[in-house]
């Protein structure tokens, strides 16, 4: 399964919900990829506040817990020379460790390999 996560982490329930869906699928030994792009890249900031008042776990903590069970990828903003560009994402500690940075061409390859179950959220 491929989850294309385009939603910012706390603006809606989309990030939390799609990570739980990915977890339920990965638990069935179905290979699961989560690809962060566009506003979804905000999910990858490290050290999200664990004392927040939203009473949900920090998304960054969930991602770190699920590494190994699912594969996580980040797609840089194609037209950005600053934040979320490829070089910006590659700088140390910008985003969580364990996230592979890929281009859209690799996203296309993933979709060719596994076109059956794709969730865009």
């Amino acid at each position, binding site marked *: *399964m491929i989850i294309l996560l385009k939603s910012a982490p706390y603006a809606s329930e989309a990030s939390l919900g799609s990570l739980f*869906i990915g977890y*339920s*699928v990965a*638990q069935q030994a179905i290979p699961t990829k989560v690809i962060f792009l566009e506003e979804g890249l905000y999910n990858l900031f490290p050290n999200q506040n664990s004392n927040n008042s939203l009473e949900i776990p920090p998304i960054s903590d969930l991602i770190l817990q699920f590494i190994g069970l699912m594969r996580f990828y980040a797609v840089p903003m194609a037209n950005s020379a600053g934040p979320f560009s490829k070089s910006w994402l590659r700088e140390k500690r910008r985003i969580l460790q364990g996230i592979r940075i890929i281009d859209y061409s690799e996203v296309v390859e993933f979709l060719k390999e596994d076109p059956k*179950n794709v969730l865009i959220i």
Partner: protein
Amino acid sequence: MPISKFLVLITEPPYSTPLFPEKVKIIHHLLENNNNVALFLYIDGIHQLQTSQFPRNFANIGQMYAYLHQQFPNLQFYACSRCSAARGYLDLNKSKIDDEYFFSNKLYPFVQIVSVRKFGELLAKGYRLLKL
């Protein structure tokens, strides 16, 4: 014999767009063509199956699902337990959360309230994801 198995994921509330009747029609067509269909209501999609909808300017989506259920009793309706609890749909006195028995009298009675784990189990059974 079913041609194919579809797991339809719905995450939006019923009147967020006037196009939802069209989405229900897609499900209807899948069923008419002998496909096996399971609906998974998730996040705000839970509201789709609330029993007391009373829209003034839209088709009643809940009644459309009830009609689908009458026409196609094999259509499976699943609602996420976490999402249902968060939105006040669970009767916490009658539900036994630890035993994963979830009860609601605010959702149509043909809806099964289940852990999100069910989603993965359905994909493992060969259902194909269709997000509407």
